[in-house]
């Protein structure tokens, strides 16, 4: 069907929402609660648009396209409405961007900037909750929550876990575990990844760096064989955060507790940092040349005395294809044995 959005004629698909059709046409309608992989929610009212001939604004994320409708997404009236919505949200949101870990990566902050929201014309009661950080992974600051329900939807719809939902109503509404207990779930961290504000953040990333200070490198998770695409956020020489890659990937925006949260081993103080040679039962630090020379000397002695097949090599399912290829090449062409295997059987 044919629709017109911001004077642009678009061929829209049946059942598509205005927001989706606009997005395909390169028209960006701002939203806080919409996520393309989740059900349509219509909660934040930021994505309101005008349809010619209708006497009220509609939420573009829940309104399906209709043949020949004419939509405006960015009129003065619409912008004023959005600004009011943002003012209302911010009237119950702590104004502490300067210490918030989400700063620079916060949709609410970006929209407040775009719409010039500064003063709070709606002074009144604000929700005040203690920060919940008793669980091992996630800092949950409900005073920052805008109740967009992305976290509850991702938990239920994508993960099939349903650990959290919104309890109570109105001013008292809050995302919670049953009986509002300390978070105890699979800790996949998908709720953190979809949170548009600073309500949910990674515990280990706290205070480690601002988003604009980090470099981002796309790579593959080092745990199971699924091969999830991950983005490493790096400040200086330290990985401070992991998120599912936004590019096309086998995991399609999801990770598990290991991929999301088990990366600080990289900077563990226990890392081996120097070659070691055992002398009288104790490890002594050595230079690379000493360690390599000693290893070669011992391997050569043993090869000469007992033959190539008296030496074996265990390669690694954790290492890259390139590491593994060179390892087996060294065992076969260098040492001269086919005694090479890895832990495929465990």
């Amino acid at each position: 069907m044919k629709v017109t959005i911001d004077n642009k004629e678009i061929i829209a698909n049946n059942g598509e929402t205005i927001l989706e059709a606009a997005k395909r046409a390169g028209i960006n309608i701002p939203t806080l609660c919409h996520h393309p992989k989740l059900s349509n929610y219509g909660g934040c009212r930021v994505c309101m648009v005008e349809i010619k001939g209708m006497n009220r604004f509609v939420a573009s994320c829940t309104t399906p396209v209709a043949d020949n409708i004419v939509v405006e997404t960015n009129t003065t009236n619409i912008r004023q409405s959005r600004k009011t919505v943002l003012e209302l949200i911010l009237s119950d949101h702590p104004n502490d961007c300067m210490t918030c870990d989400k700063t620079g990566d916060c949709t609410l902050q970006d929209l407040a900037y775009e719409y010039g929201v500064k003063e709070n014309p709606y002074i009144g009661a604000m929700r005040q909750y203690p920060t919940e950080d008793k669980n091992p992974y996630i800092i949950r600051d409900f005073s920052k929550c805008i109740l967009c329900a992305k976290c509850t939807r991702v938990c239920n719809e994508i993960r099939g876990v349903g650990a959290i939902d919104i309890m109570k109503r109105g001013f008292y509404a809050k995302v919670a575990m049953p009986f509002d207990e300390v978070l105890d779930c699979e800790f996949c961290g998908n709720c953190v990844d979809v949170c548009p504000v600073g309500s949910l953040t990674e515990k280990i990333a706290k205070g480690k760096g601002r988003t604009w200070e980090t470099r981002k490198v796309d790579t593959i998770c080092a745990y199971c064989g699924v091969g999830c695409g991950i983005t490493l956020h790096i400040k200086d020489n330290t990985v401070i955060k992991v998120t599912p890659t936004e590019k096309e990937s086998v995991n399609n925006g999801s990770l598990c507790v290991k991929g999301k949260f088990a990366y600080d081993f990289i900077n563990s103080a226990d890392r081996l940092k120097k070659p070691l040679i055992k002398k009288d039962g104790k490890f002594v630090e050595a230079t690379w040349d000493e360690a390599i020379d000693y290893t070669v000397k011992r391997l050569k002695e043993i090869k000469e005395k007992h033959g190539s097949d008296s030496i074996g090599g265990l390669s690694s399912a954790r290492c890259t294809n390139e590491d593994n290829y060179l390892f087996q090449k060294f065992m076969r062409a260098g040492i001269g044995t086919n005694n090479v295997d890895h832990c495929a059987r465990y």
Partner: protein
Amino acid sequence: MEEAEKADVIFVIGSNTTETHPVAALGIKKAVRYKGAKLIVADPRRIDLCRFADLHLGHRPGTDAALINGLLKVIIDEDLTDKKFIAERTECFDDIKDSLKQFTPEYVEKITGVPKERIINAARMYANAKNALIYYTMGITQHTNGTGNVRALANLVLSTGKIGREGSGLNPLRGQNNVQGACDVGALPEYYSGYQKVNDEKNQEKFEKAWGARLSNKLGLTATEMTEAADAERLKAMYVMGENPLLSDPDINHTRHAFEKLEFLVVQDIFMSETAELADVVLPASCFAEKDGTFTNTERRIQMVRKAVEPPEEATEDWKIIIKLSNAFGYKMEYKSPADIMDEIAANTPQYAGISFDRLNGLGIQWPCPDKNHSGTRTLHKEKFTRGKGLFTKVEFIPSRELPDNEYPFILTTGRMLTHYHTGTMTRRSAGPNEHVKEGYVELSHEDANRLNIKNGEKVKVSSRRGQIDIKAKVTDMVSQGIVFIPFHFKEAAANMLTSRELDPVAKIPELKSCAVKIEK
């Protein structure tokens, strides 16, 4: 991964998917919850995936072959086979028919403990589906009859023609990030890269020419055989890169004993693992975030791994260490970067022939990829199988080598849990997981706990003929009476102190999923 959504029935056997492959499990859950797929879960434990299952077959550990044969028997008896597929794509179907005679639902119920109605239902559900996927992991393979178990599954797939198209097939989920790739590029005792046999003269010649070296045509030892050879003092030295057999091997008392006999051990790793502690030389290596290269995932997808940070102090990339060592040893290696190494892999490996780093953006490429213009292969066995026709093989039911008795009355099965990974070297050094799950545990049924007067959280002694550990009891309905489960990540209560090193005679996989233990307060 998204293939699960195209299946009408998904049959998961011996895979605790939501914990060991959580993101792959999302596809299964989505297929069941939103696409109307039916789910059959066969696992001795009431794993999380059972929440979504239409049928749970809770068979006793080690009885997989009997269960699968039982399903096939129902399918044949009820005439639910795919006759066209059997005639055109397979051979030796008639040979196995006779061997299935004894596997009546009644007989299979007796062996597996699964009610016969469920066996019949599952068989019908699987056979009647237009498309059906099977997922399995180590729950199938880590048995002395592991090869038989996989063959039984292959029989099931072949008899119903559920392979070679999207939404159908037999899928092992690989447990480690690059176990597929390590196999592909020849880290195996019987193959060069691309599964080219080392004892085939043509291959030997090909690689001698490519590598400029004399090569042995004698099959090498598998990892488990190396431990035995070290114990017998036939193997004198080992080079271990990024592996920790002293926690992951079965019967680690024995493994330690064997490794201690080595005259020389060099270990290249990122941490001082249990294995590194025994080494004569330890070489500090790099982790995944500190090097460029590729991993090949469980769907044969070759993906780029990118260097993000520098390794600490003098630690360095594994490929650089191997080059250093090889050159010092007198076998020359010259590569400027991992991209060069991949070019050599591509030149010598037919399945990887079209792979080079400049092609591996985004989703990577699924092998076989025979040339630079090929976009990769999503589904295998479409027109024919690697060997031509799909071969039916008789599979006997061989019970686990060690069965419970009066002295050791419980069956112990081992595996992973969600929060930790393998020998814990990485996850236990990560703050969140380490705070979340600090120690190991033994899962025990309510019935057994009551009988032995064991409370949840209480310390118990678990022992087998090979060793003993002290461990916290977790009383749960995950396991049935007579069965206990221990995750193997925790060195302080190492499950592999107890496990048996009986091997599958073909695949040389140890029977980590079933041995006999006793539990005392």
